[in-house]
């Protein structure tokens, strides 16, 4: 029976000092990560559709977490390439919540400012900014801001597509807003405070 990490610790089944970096990542991950259960079988690295572009396979990353290689892990491009396809998650024989661990590592890398390529973190941040401002995503605003910043050269080849999207009514020029934006904002404000205390 899989047990929750914190419950294992309280019951004395796992000692906190054994875990350190691994434990930190595990505790910051939603759900029960089972990260400490990894047997290095490589199912994740074998399943990953984008492994060819990764600096480390997920498996290697977990070994590095165990070895306490904080900086190397947070600098790795691996979490940023994760496409959340969950192939590794359902195949993992140890039920490690690999995709959620990748989310955790992204968050930790942003906080430690250790990512090497800023494209992905900026995209996430821009997306979130839009959502926080309107309550809905705003594809037009997102696309224009993001492409101008990171792919200015890609813009010309993108223009026909963007134009097509607009003329076919699939992209609106103005953002949509939810009604109770204040409510959402106060929820998120409180959530951010809680995040810091955890």
């Amino acid at each position, binding site marked *: *029976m899989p*047990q929750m990490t914190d*419950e294992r610790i*309280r*019951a*004395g*089944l796992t000692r906190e000092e054994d875990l350190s970096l691994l434990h930190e990542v595990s505790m910051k991950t939603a759900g029960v990560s089972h990260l400490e259960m990894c047997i290095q079988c490589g199912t994740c690295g074998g399943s990953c559709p984008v492994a060819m572009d990764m600096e480390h396979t997920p498996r290697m990353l977990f070994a590095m977490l165990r070895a306490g290689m904080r900086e190397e892990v947070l600098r790795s491009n691996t979490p940023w390439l994760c496409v959340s396809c969950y192939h590794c998650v359902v195949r993992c024989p140890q039920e490690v919540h690999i995709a959620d661990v990748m989310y955790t590592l992204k968050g930790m890398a942003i906080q430690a400012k250790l990512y090497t390529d800023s494209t992905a973190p900026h995209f996430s941040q821009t997306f979130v900014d839009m959502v926080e401002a309107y309550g809905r995503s705003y594809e037009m605003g997102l696309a224009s801001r993001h492409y101008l910043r990171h792919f200015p050269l890609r813009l010309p080849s993108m223009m026909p597509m963007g134009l097509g999207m607009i003329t076919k009514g699939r992209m609106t020029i103005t953002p949509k807003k939810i009604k109770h934006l204040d409510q959402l904002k106060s929820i998120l404000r409180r959530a951010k405070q809680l995040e810091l205390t955890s």
Partner: protein
Amino acid sequence: MNNDTFEPTIIGFTCNWCSYRASDLAGTARMKYAPNVRLIRLMCSGRLDPTFVLRALSSGADGVMITGCHPGECHYIEQNYKALRRFLLLRRVLKGMGIEPERVKLVWASAAEGAKFAAETTTFVEEIRKLGPLNWGKTDGGSQTVDREELSTVHRPSSEMEAIA
């Protein structure tokens, strides 16, 4: 009373064939769990007379954990189902008596589930800790001749001390 410092006392009834062996296994594997549970071995959870539970609660236990084989795995074929029936009835009786039914818990644990036994024990202790002391059959004068000082060293230091104060 501060529930964080309250150390509950719990009586655990175990089945000779499964849960007692699970607790043996937890021991052999040196799994650590909360020390608040004191075990009684029965041959089967079907042996559990509900009056044992009432007796335990009235004699100073804050909670009772009943453990037995998983449904379908009873050493005596199906007697754990009878334990389940009695348990469900007992919870209703307790409610009627004004006692939180959550003070009695039923846990299935096979002989192989030492880890489960340990985890369930720890969880139950936390649940009872939240509920606080029961103090049933202790508050109404009666036999107050106990050596309280003695008890305080061996038995529930914080709760007993505060109960006297």
